[in-house]
């Protein structure tokens, strides 16, 4: 089985290479069509035209577009994504510094989404054929209508402003040190033995993660409910009932296991989308992740940085999808046949 999964992973990663090449080329072209001059932008405003021309040659901007792309690609393959024009630092190191915070947020959000999704799905199914069914059904559609962007603002308002329970700016309380070991603040604070930093970071993580989790749980809820409906038509459910098993045992031991597969597929797809959803939540909560960096880069028309971050988002989403596919093969015996 391991061989099959490994083969699948390698196959998927190879298939991702051409996609990434095209994506990076597209990204490069879209951004080069802009009426801005990166050379002029990276020099002080009093630079002379001669200086700007020299800089243009230096940056390779006087060459044809495909050649420029190849130069950039060669750099990118060596981990060199160029320098951020506005922040005057390596774009690659800026991304590396903010990526862990974003991953941390996405994982926390996914845990919340899965917990709420499974719990809610079971509840929705439990309420079938009762008076509450329509109400619960309509509520889940209404919840589905609230994107992470609105959840972020609503939670900020309710728990941050009105109830004043949780902080809603930054990743940790101002004044506290942020130990840098692995880049993941929660882990680093524990490794450094700073429990106060850990608690503060957790409290700062709750609202953004909950906002994302709440936005993605209704989809999981509804798929779980409808796959439970499908599973309940199967003979083995009737058979389990004839054996005299309790309804809750049938639901949790027999039906849930079989309904889990389509739910997991959706959850995997959702995780990819959720990862890019961190962008807005980060902006709303001023959370120092890649999303905030991206929005700043976009506002400053900081081309090298936009390219580096855009590509990073694509790579991470592709990796997540590959991982989910492999997990799917591990869990579904039918797919293991070669």
């Amino acid at each position, binding site marked *: 089985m391991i061989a099959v999964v490994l083969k699948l992973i390698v196959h998927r990663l190879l298939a991702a290479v051409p*996609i*990434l090449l*095209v*994506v990076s080329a*597209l*990204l490069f072209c*879209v*951004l080069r*069509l*802009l009426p801005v001059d990166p050379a002029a932008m990276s020099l002080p405003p009093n630079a002379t035209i001669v200086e700007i021309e020299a800089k243009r040659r230096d940056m390779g901007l006087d060459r044809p577009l495909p050649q420029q792309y190849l130069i950039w690609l060669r750099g990118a393959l060596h981990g060199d994504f160029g320098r951020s024009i506005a922040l005057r630092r390596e774009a690659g190191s800026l991304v590396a510094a903010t990526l862990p915070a974003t991953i941390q947020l996405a994982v926390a959000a996914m845990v919340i989404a899965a917990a709420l999704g499974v719990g809610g799905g079971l509840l929705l199914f439990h309420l079938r054929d009762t008076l509450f069914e329509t109400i619960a059904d*309509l509520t889940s*559609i*209404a919840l*589905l*209508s*609230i*994107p992470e*962007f*609105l959840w972020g*603002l*609503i939670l*900020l*308002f309710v728990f941050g*402003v*009105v109830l004043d329970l949780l902080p809603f700016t930054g990743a940790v309380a101002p004044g506290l040190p942020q130990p840098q070991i692995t880049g993941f603040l929660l882990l680093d604070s524990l490794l450094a033995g700073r429990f106060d930093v850990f608690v503060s970071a957790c409290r700062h993580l709750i609202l953004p993660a909950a906002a994302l989790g709440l936005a993605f749980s209704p989809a999981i809820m509804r798929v779980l409910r*409808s796959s439970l*409906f499908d599973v309940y038509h199967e003979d083995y459910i009737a058979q389990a009932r004839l054996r005299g098993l309790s309804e809750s045992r049938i639901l949790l031991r027999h039906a849930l296991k079989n309904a889990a597969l389509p739910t997991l597929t959706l959850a995997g797809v959702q995780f*990819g*989308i959720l*990862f*890019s*959803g961190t*962008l*807005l939540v980060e*902006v*709303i909560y001023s959370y120092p992740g890649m999303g905030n960096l*991206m*929005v700043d880069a*976009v*506002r400053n*028309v900081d081309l090298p940085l*936009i390219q580096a*971050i*855009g590509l990073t*988002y*694509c790579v991470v*989403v*592709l990796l997540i999808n590959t991982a989910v596919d492999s997990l799917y093969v591990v869990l579904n015996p039918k797919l293991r046949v070669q």
Partner: protein
Amino acid sequence: MMATLSRALRSPRLIIALGMVFCIAFCAIFAGWIAPHDPGEQNLLSILTPPAWADGGDPNFPLGTDSLGRCVLSRLIYGARTAMLVALFASLGAMIIGTILAHISGYFGGAVDWVIGRLVDVWMSFPPVILSLILMVGLGVGLDRVILAIVLVDWTRFCRVLRSEVLIVRRHDYVAAARLLGFTHWQTITREVLPATLPLLITLVSLEMAIAVVVEAILSFVGLGVGADQPAWGQMIADARQYVYQSPSNLLLPIFAIFLTVTAFNLLGDGLRRTLDVRLAVTGR
């Protein structure tokens, strides 16, 4: 057709959804008559006033004013116009591109199908938020640019879903019969295949409208949306976020407006799916 119509009229959620969409569309179309003020008119003497019923409220501004003393109610109403324009044109644009490519891809199959399929793959490997932000950098701000960006991002949703529907429809005998009768490919697609995919298409459009409203709000919130001179709910939220302690209602009202609009379109999509899909209409689930 009549059966579908009578089924639609008996579905309460479809009626409610249509009612909500109608109300919002009414605000959008007649904004000039309903709104008490010009949405851009600044009254610097009365900034951040609370709604009229609260302490210190001004009956001149029923829902209060924002940080520049602009009437919140008027901005909400004109914001509905922006949202509805984007929802309508962006979803139609995405529908047209997506539907055409989906029908070509599913009907002809082979190399064409492969090329379009890979194009969709590449497009979808960009997370939508990231792609729309990058496009807005390239396109610049403005209502038409927002619409264009959403069309360029979201045509893939239509293309992917409709293609598999076309694949199913194409195998039906009546499609083969049409070809045998001497229909050209174009005639077969427009007269036989398209009508069969229409129910799914209509549902997708109404769901896409909900997505477009959110994307427009997001882009305006980040400051890359319709431009500063045009009132938009996302902008109102970004502005109110800074003054959330002084004037909480300014934050809540546009959030509520977006929620209402998105719910209306989602409910409409769900109701349409149930009434138009014969299989679902029978079981009711």
